[in-house]
């Protein structure tokens, strides 16, 4: 049987039907030159595959994921649904006009967060994502990091002491300074599971500022170590 280069290649790639493959196999077994030519096809495939295998393990750039992230329910829809749900609206001192003030406190406004804002700013600047840091007599954790058009935002939980109520919120860094843009009060002990209300408020806020999915920890670390001097997601 005359075995062409393309037939040999199709044999190496498993593209021949069983009968033809059997005949080619016999011809190869009987011919060292065919064996060597077969190796060209086997080894170029293995080599090419190996040469690019590492790329699958690289972290995917955040802006690629962000470009594909599902748009969440719009903030206005959310606000409207809240306004008409009387029971829920009662608990929210939240209005469209006030939403983007530097600090919006829901429920029981407390000076506690403001008192700690200097310390909070340094934690927002330097705390690794997901790590529990000391804040006042309690703890602070950066729970997510998001690229937005004019900088970076981080969602966080901040509990001043083990027994006090704490905050869940979002702070954004603009022109080198951190501002707490949203803070939702949480009763003590509720931090193990994210409350629906806080999650919805944070989601709505992140939608409004055009944030995509949170950076993964590797990308977050690169951005943090670069002093947050990172390119915003491209349009």
């Amino acid at each position, binding site marked *: 049987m005359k075995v062409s280069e393309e037939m040999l290649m199709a044999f190496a790639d498993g*593209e021949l039907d069983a009968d033809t493959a059997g005949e080619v196999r016999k011809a190869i077994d009987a011919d060292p030159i065919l064996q*060597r*030519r077969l190796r060209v096809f086997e080894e170029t495939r293995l*080599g*090419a595959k190996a040469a690019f295998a590492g790329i699958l393990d690289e972290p995917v750039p955040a802006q690629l*994921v962000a470009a594909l992230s599902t748009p969440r329910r719009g903030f206005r829809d959310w606000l409207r649904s809240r306004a008409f749900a009387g029971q829920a609206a009662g608990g929210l001192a939240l209005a469209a006009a006030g939403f983007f003030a530097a600090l919006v406190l829901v429920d029981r406004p407390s000076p506690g967060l403001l008192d700690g804002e200097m310390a909070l700013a340094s934690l927002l600047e330097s705390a690794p994502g997901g790590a529990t840091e000391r804040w006042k007599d309690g703890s602070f954790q950066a729970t997510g990091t998001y690229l937005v058009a004019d900088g970076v935002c981080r969602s966080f939980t901040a509990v001043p002491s083990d027994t006090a109520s704490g905050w869940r919120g979002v702070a954004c860094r603009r022109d080198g300074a951190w501002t707490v843009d949203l803070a939702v009060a949480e009763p003590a002990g509720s931090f193990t599971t994210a409350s629906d209300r806080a999650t919805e408020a944070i989601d709505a806020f992140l939608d409004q500022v055009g944030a995509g999915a949170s950076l993964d920890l590797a990308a977050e670390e690169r951005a943090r170590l670069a002093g947050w001097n990172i390119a915003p997601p491209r349009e």
Partner: protein
Amino acid sequence: MAADIRHQIILLLPRLRRFARGLTGSAAEADDLVQGACERALRAIGSWQPGTRLDSWLFRILRNLWIDDLRRRRIAVSSEGPIDPPGEDGRTVTEARIDLGRVRERIAELPPAQREVLVLVCIEDLSYREAAAVLDVPIGTIMSRLARARQALAASLGESGASAPGARGAVR
């Protein structure tokens, strides 16, 4: 539905990046290409037919974007390249010790029309038929280009590999 497809595309991003890297040979160009392809895919999401392979559909979009870019830069796309003799003289990758960086370089030097077939079949594991559908050419064309690409790759690695005895067995 659309949200589900977005999620599936996100899961395919590592493969899209690998495919684009194989085509362009450059990490930065590859990610630009992936981003452009994702944007184009989202705009055209209605034209993907459920039940067909999403990866092939995305490969096709990405590849067409790459071809557009090559044409803009006036790089010949349809070149079949020189026809290399089969490696009967023993200068194949068999004896050569090659390193993976060299393999990537040599692949990047292949004519685009050979490179894209090699990447789809040998790296992304598409069948000849699937590759033919992505590139919109007959299977016979896939086979002739793929055979040429691999013989050229083997020949260039055989030549350069022999002079790089320090590189240790990269082909596993």
